[in-house]
């Protein structure tokens, strides 16, 4: 007696089809699972056996062998429980299961079905392979509905399936596609809550509009962290395709709250500076596992005290900063993980923190300052379009009532409009922050006046070719924020204020 049940797993961030075969044969009673499973899968024997017995079925008292194909693919996790139970029960009852249905879920000992990771990625993959019916944990229904138009049945308990299989009773449906605004991050700071700092706030707006990387330099306590936390609040909601990517990643790494549907808020990740390169860009044991960079995909990666990060961790950021994705190779295969984010880095100006402070005297020697700055290497700096100094606020400034304070919502309107300009120019293409030199020649055409201004600046301020490109990218975004098709002199002039300072 043999039965087959389809399910899937995640490798890297991609769904993979897995077929569960259960065979019941004469012999000594036993339960064996083969097919390169990890420890969690070996323990499925106990979970599945007890859950079957507690749900009104009887676990066959014969020799039960379960195989998970493709057998050479390493399998991790607990998402196979439901498919194994379905295959075993139906092999015992000698009922074939439909070949176009997939079964996902982890079993509790009482037979309840628990949510699993990666439902979205698995469902999307199986949907492409022609699966037409999905049985998923109730808490994962909203997620699965994002990926498929086929019927998705929420399974709350193994007992519900007994009636379904034996009498053809319908399963309780689940609500339709839910849009959630849940994200793992704390609620963003509103710009109106930050005193002063108009220059840095404006830089945040430009960073949000063009997806430019940003470096905030300032003494301790100047408000760099607060500013960074305000960035998600001025980013537009994710377009559908990007929201699906973000939700899928959150689901694969187990960050999606149970029952959540589409995440439309850009993620915000703030790894601590002691993080290892593997945790930052991805790694893991035998199979590739996404890191912080991938978790921040389409959102914000905030690196506070960036000069304190490990050198190898910082250097590992080069590929994602350059390409928006990264290749992770492990012993049992490699994966290409997405990682296109806005980097917000914060640093002190020098080891003592007071360089450039008009009130305090910096006690560092030029060599110390240079060594400190060199911790952020040239290739990383080259990718950071905006650099601003965040001065310490005087107590008087903090207490004084401010005349004009713009709320995040107002700024966000301008950001959305600037993004629309960019989408009109390049419907598929990158945002301004990722434009290449060739693309800039087309998108950021300068008139004669601007040309002269930029050439003078390049000459006087000794700007490198890369620095000129940075200025052009930023000027393009400033013009978009200004609702202008043509870059004018004031846009270039403003862009020049965000360059790296001495």
């Amino acid at each position, binding site marked *: 007696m043999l039965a087959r049940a389809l399910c899937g797993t995640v490798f890297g961030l991609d769904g993979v089809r897995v077929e569960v075969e259960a065979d019941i044969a004469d012999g000594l009673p036993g339960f064996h699972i083969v097919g390169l499973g990890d420890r969690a899968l070996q323990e499925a024997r106990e979970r599945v056996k007890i859950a079957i017995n507690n749900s009104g079925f009887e676990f066959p008292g014969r020799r039960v062998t379960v195989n998970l194909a493709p057998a050479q693919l390493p399998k991790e996790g607990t998402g196979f429980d439901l498919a194994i139970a379905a295959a075993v029960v139906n092999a015992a009852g000698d009922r074939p299961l439909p070949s176009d249905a997939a079964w996902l879920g982890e079993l509790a000992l009482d037979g309840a079905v628990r949510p699993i990771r990666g439902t979205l990625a698995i469902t999307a993959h199986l949907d492409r392979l022609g699966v037409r019916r999905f049985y998923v944990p109730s808490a994962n229904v909203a997620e699965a509905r994002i990926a498929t138009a086929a019927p998705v049945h929420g399974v709350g308990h193994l007992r519900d399936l007994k009636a379904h299989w034996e009498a053809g009773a319908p399963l309780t449906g689940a609500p339709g596609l839910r849009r959630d605004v849940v994200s793992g991050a704390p609620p963003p700071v509103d710009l109106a809550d930050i005193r002063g700092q108009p220059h840095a706030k*404006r830089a945040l707006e430009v960073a949000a509009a063009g997806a430019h990387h940003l470096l905030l330099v300032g003494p301790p306590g100047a408000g760099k962290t607060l500013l960074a936390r305000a960035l998600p609040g001025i980013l537009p909601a994710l377009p559908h395709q990007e929201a699906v990517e973000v939700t899928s990643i959150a689901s694969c790494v187990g960050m999606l709250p149970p029952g959540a549907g589409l995440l439309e808020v850009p993620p915000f990740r703030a790894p601590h500076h002691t993080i290892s390169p593997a945790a930052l860009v991805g790694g893991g044991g035998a199979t590739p596992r996404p890191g912080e960079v991938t978790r921040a995909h389409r959102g914000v990666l905030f690196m506070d005290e960036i000069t304190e990060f490990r050198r190898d961790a910082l250097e590992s950021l080069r590929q994602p900063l350059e390409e928006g994705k990264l290749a992770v190779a492990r012993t049992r295969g490699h994966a290409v993980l997405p990682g296109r984010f806005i980097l917000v880095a914060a640093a002190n100006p020098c080891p003592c923190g007071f360089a450039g402070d*008009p009130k305090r005297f910096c006690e560092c*020697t030029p060599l110390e300052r240079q060594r400190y700055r060199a911790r952020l290497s040239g290739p990383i700096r080259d990718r950071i379009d905006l650099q601003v100094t965040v*001065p310490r606020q005087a107590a008087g400034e903090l207490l004084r009532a401010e005349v004009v304070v713009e709320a995040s919502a107002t700024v966000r309107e301008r950001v959305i409009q600037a993004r629309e300009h960019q989408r009109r120019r390049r419907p598929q293409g990158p945002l301004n922050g990722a434009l290449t030199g060739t693309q800039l020649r087309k998108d950021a055409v300068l008139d004669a006046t601007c040309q002269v201004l930029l050439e003078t*600046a390049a000459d*006087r301020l000794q700007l490198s070719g890369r620095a000129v490109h940075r200025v052009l990218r930023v000027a393009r975004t400033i013009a978009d924020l200004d609702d202008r098709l043509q870059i004018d002199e004031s846009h270039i*002039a403003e862009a020049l*204020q965000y360059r790296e300072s001495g």
Partner: protein
Amino acid sequence: MRDPLRDASNARIAPKRGARGPAGPDPSRKGDGDHRRERETTIVWLTDPAYPWLLKQIHDPPPRLYVSGRLPSEPMIAIVGSRRATPYGCRAAHRLARDLSGAGVVVVSGLARGIDAAAHRGALEGNTPTVAVMATGLDRIYPPEHLALATAIAASGALITEAEEGTLPLPGRFPVRNRIISGLSLGVVVVEAAERSGALITARMAAEQGREVFCVPGSIENPLAIGGHRLIKDGAKLVQTVEDVLDEFPELARARARTHAHTHARTRTRTRADSGPQDPELFAVWELLDWVEPRHHDDLAVVMNLDSKEVSRRLTLLEMSGYIIGDCGAVTRRA
């Protein structure tokens, strides 16, 4: 003003060009601190006619000098000061050195960080060579990030030391070296010297050797100005412009005459520059700025009641036309 940090980083990059493998301590890269790729070292003995005449007059002249480059014959003035100089001090040293060099005077200094380096860099912009007196051997440029600077100095002027090759930068060697700096020079200009600093030692030696002592004043709030201000109280001449230095030396009359015409032409343009930019929008910003105390971008935005992008625009235009200097978001007027 050129950015000393950026220049310093160039100096670090330069020697790596020939290096193999990853950067790191590598005993085989001994030639790193060696600026002489093809130039030869000459030894000038006390008895040599080429030995600097002024240096021969001090009571303990070095018996021999190791020279890389060419010992200039023009009159020399030393500029010395703190290694932890303020931006103001560096600007002052840079400008004074450039003007002295433009007047045909050789600027002597010690190749140290801060004021010394600013003086050498300023002098390199003039048309007279500059001389660096080192405390280490010619094969050990100290500090190492001044390798490129040393190479530039030796290309037109000279690096001088009494120390043999391989001599390390030991603390005791620097005060001894200072007597050569003052000994070579008609006078010593002190720019920013804290109390008990090397620059003050040089000034004291200059006085003992019968040379003129000058001082560029600083802010009374600046601890680095205390030593220099004490010199002024004790009779050192206060220096504002290059003419204050040249006036003291009858033998520099011709240099003075040359500078006179030069500065007059410049003063005329300066008065125009001092009256600020023509554009009323830019003038409104410029008017709020100071020559010494930097003012931050955000501060200007609040005071002028302008939004940040407008302040950015005006500051860039002012910087482009040379009216102001920006540093880490804070700006000062260009003197």
